[in-house]
């Protein structure tokens, strides 16, 4: 345990509670909560934080390419000054006041271009903000930019973006994962203190695992989807990507809650997530599905995850192996449901009302066809076609209905598992971040890489990804903890206890050095 409590009066060049032995080079090396405390106590100003953030982005963005849109420097400073005034006047006192944040580019920001990393929305400026964005702004968080992603969140590598490929801060030849690759890379490279991502089939957890940062997909219905440009409506949630579990808890607490603008959002009592941040996990029942260690899983990942099991057992958790079953149905069910919804959700991008429209056309149908042919990338088209197929007359029962039945059975399997366990533990991914340019050659193989993450989306469960080591080549490995619906608390508790047994490992890009 290296996170000793000590009072820091001046931030530079002293050590951070969080950053362990490393020298603090930038305010972006702090966690969101630490930075928020320093701003609140007056140690640093919001403008200091904003400047460090802009500098950090400037320094590594050429290598990382985490952002699609960066807010103009003057505008960021102006907003920082405004937030500072509100803090000084006592109007803002929350933990995130003045803390810089990046937002995944499928979350609408009023007046700020929101592209979904697609040509078809490459000039789209939303007339309204997503509920999560308004919530963060009301907390005084400072939005510095919109992060890169797979086009319309379809992909596992952030390579399908119309705006270029994001690089992994641990190794620039590797992908950061996806679809929230830009958000995970920006946090991992310490360009920002935290970011928002979205997770339809693992799009928060997988890039967090690949980039060595922490992110949670909340229970379906916990965070409003209003303003999240839909991909798989019944599966996705917005969630935080941050440096540690405490940040995730604080950010999640800030963005969650019932929203009258999202009928699928749930009325929940404020769960008091911060109270779950204790290291005492004595008696917590953890189930480890045998099915999550199949032959396709990298042996180094298996070892790292089983090492985590040992650590947690030592801390007093009761760990047991069990058979979850149905795991092999999760990926096909997921791709059918998500594609079906995507095909319908993406219909509205037709060149009529906003976004890209083809230059030349003779009639309406040609306009539709050309706009969509030119506006969407290959992976998006692949999923629209797949989605249209599985819903078409004569195939609905064979595919879509069957997928819905599988989804219900998978949920049932989890329900019975959660009768026995508080938390289910496993890997996030079967392998570490692959090299850029390799995944899209074999989409089926890429889809199968989602095997351990999609179940949480199908069953609506909260699931977190926390770093649990590096492989021989120095690439991060993620540990996944899933809880029953609405039980973020146990997930955060176990994640927090596990995190406390380890040092935070900074990516080479964040350390100021070049990543490979």
């Amino acid at each position: 345990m290296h996170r000793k409590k000590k009072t820091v009066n001046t931030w530079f060049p002293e050590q951070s509670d969080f950053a362990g032995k490393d020298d603090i080079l930038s305010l972006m090396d702090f966690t969101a909560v630490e930075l928020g405390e320093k701003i609140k106590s007056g140690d640093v100003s919001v403008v200091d934080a904003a400047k460090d953030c802009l500098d950090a982005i400037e320094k590594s963005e050429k290598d990382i390419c985490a952002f699609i849109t960066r807010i103009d420097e003057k505008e960021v400073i102006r907003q920082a000054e405004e937030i500072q005034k509100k803090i000084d006047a006592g109007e803002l006192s929350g933990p995130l006041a003045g803390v810089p944040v990046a937002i995944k580019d499928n979350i609408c920001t009023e007046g700020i271009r929101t592209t979904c990393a697609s040509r078809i929305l490459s000039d789209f400026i939303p007339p309204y903000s997503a509920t999560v964005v308004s919530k963060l702004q009301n907390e005084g968080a400072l939005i510095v930019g919109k992060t890169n992603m797979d086009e319309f969140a379809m992909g596992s590598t952030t390579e399908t973006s119309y705006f270029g490929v994001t690089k992994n801060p641990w190794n620039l030849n590797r992908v950061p994962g996806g679809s929230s690759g830009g958000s995970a890379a920006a946090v991992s490279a310490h360009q920002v203190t935290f970011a928002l991502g979205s997770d339809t089939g693992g799009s928060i957890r997988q890039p967090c695992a690949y980039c060595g940062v922490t992110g949670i997909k909340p229970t379906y219905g916990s965070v409003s989807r209003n303003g999240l440009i839909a991909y798989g409506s019944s599966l996705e949630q917005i969630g935080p990507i941050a440096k540690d579990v405490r940040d995730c808890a604080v950010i999640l607490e800030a963005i969650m809650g019932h929203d009258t603008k999202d009928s699928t959002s749930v009325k929940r009592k404020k769960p008091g997530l911060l109270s779950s941040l204790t290291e005492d996990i004595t008696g917590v029942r953890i189930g480890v599905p045998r099915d999550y260690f199949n032959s396709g899983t990298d042996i180094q990942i298996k070892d790292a995850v089983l090492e985590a099991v040992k650590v947690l057992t030592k801390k007093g958790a009761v760990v047991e192996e069990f058979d979850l079953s149905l795991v092999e149905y999760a990926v096909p069910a997921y791709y059918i449901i998500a594609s079906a919804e995507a095909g319908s959700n993406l219909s509205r991008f037709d060149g009529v009302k906003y976004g890209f429209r083809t230059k030349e056309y003779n009639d309406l149908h040609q306009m539709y066809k050309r706009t969509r042919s030119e506006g969407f990338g290959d992976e998006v088209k692949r999923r629209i076609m797949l989605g249209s197929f599985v819903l078409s007359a004569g195939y609905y029962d064979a595919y879509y209905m069957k997928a819905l039945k599988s989804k219900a059975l998978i949920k049932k399997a989890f329900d019975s598992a959660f009768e026995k366990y508080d938390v289910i533990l496993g890997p996030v991914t079967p392998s570490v971040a692959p090299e850029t340019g390799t995944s899209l050659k074999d989409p089926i193989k890429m889809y199968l890489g989602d095997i351990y993450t999609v179940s949480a989306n199908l069953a609506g469960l909260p699931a977190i990804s926390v770093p649990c080591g590096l492989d021989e080549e120095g690439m991060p490995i993620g540990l996944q903890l899933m809880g029953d619906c609405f039980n973020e608390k146990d997930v955060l508790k176990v994640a927090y206890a596990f995190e406390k047994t380890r040092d935070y490992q900074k990516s080479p890009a964040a350390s100021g050095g070049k990543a490979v």
Partner: protein
Amino acid sequence: MKDYESVIGLEVHVELSTQTKIFCGCTTEFGGEPNTHTCPVCTGMPGALPVLNKQVVEHAIAVGLATNCEINRNCRFDRKNYFYPDNPQDYQISQLYEPICLNGFVDINADGEKKKIRIHEIHMEEDAGKLIHDENAALSYVDLNRSGVPLIEIVSEPDMRSAQEVIAYLEKLRTIIQYLGASDCKLQEGSMRADVNLSVRKAGTDSLGTRTEMKNLNSFKAISRAIAAETARQISIIEEGGNVIQETRRWDDNKEESFSMRSKEDAQDYRYFPEPDLPGIFISQKWIDEIKAFQPEFKDEKKERYISEYCIPEEDADIITDSKHLAGIFERTAVLCGEPKKVSNWLMVDTLRLLKEKSMDASDIKFSPENLAKLIKLTGSGIINSTVAKEVFEEIFEHDTDPDVYIKEHGLAQVNDESALRETIQKVIDENPQSVEDYRNGKEKAMGFLVGQTMKAMAGKANPGMVNNILKELL
């Protein structure tokens, strides 16, 4: 022709009269500058989500209960996917798999015969926007003010056999829905739209022929003409040895013929699937009971009651109860003045005439029962005569004027002063010796002339009974 019968089923769209749209808070008000009654939801902005208007569900349940439907207590919405610029999401939120109302019926009366028309289902959905085409510039504009206005679609079984039955069915639905206040059901304004599914077959056979669907029917007259024309068209095809093609046709009421819009082969695959943005709707028995408790007395019961309770003729009761508003005026006025037959006369004669003259609807009537009741009392007690009463009624109809005040201000009270009447009548007799002569020779008509002259001399205010008596006496 006589050997054939037409088999007709209807799909009726009704625009519900809610304040706001089905999935957002925008106003449903008709008109307005293009794209001013809109928001991210009803313009299909990325990331915007639908939120169901509870009032729409309540209206749909109310219509379902009034048409003897089962209420589907676990209904939900589905997406109907198709591309068209008036449909901003490029899918319509509708109900396919679990519609809100099922298996109902209404009784109709056509050509003096009672008949049951079965209702297959009623479902809720959103309306589309409007396209405005600029032919000169080869441009089309999209107005999304109507996008998201709530609709219910009432789908009948193919139980109708004639245009008369179709009109009777539509009138039945319209009255029920208007009584519920769920819609104003105006065909001309599009708040009620009917698509006619029609096939023909040899009379006496049971099998169904190939049907066509007819769209763009904007009045009952258009519906009648379209049914006649389509029946004739299909029969002539069959008589000539051809086959009717299953297709959608568009009726042109000016040309009085229909044109093919699209055939079954061109039919789109709508790829319906459950709307993931809206949870299923659970409708509790308590909710249904509450809505049931608020159901009004409908036309048929009301009509029967008016006949037995107020002793008005069946024809009067039938017409008065066509409009819930008119029926309300009738009943309240009748209670106030205690003269139902007189109330009925005012409504049936003068009110209907004025409505027609001013091309108004019964629902547009603004005058209060209190003032009509006063007028009836004033006439009954002889304070004004019937000629004056008609003048005063026009005032009431127009401005809801208090007749007491109006009569006083305009000095319209009837003259019952015998000496004044005698004086005037004597003058009339003196001035019209020829008529007096004629009367005495047995010409009854002359009497009428003299009465008229007297009324004229007294500016219409004379008590006609007294004038008659005095005239007779003096002659």
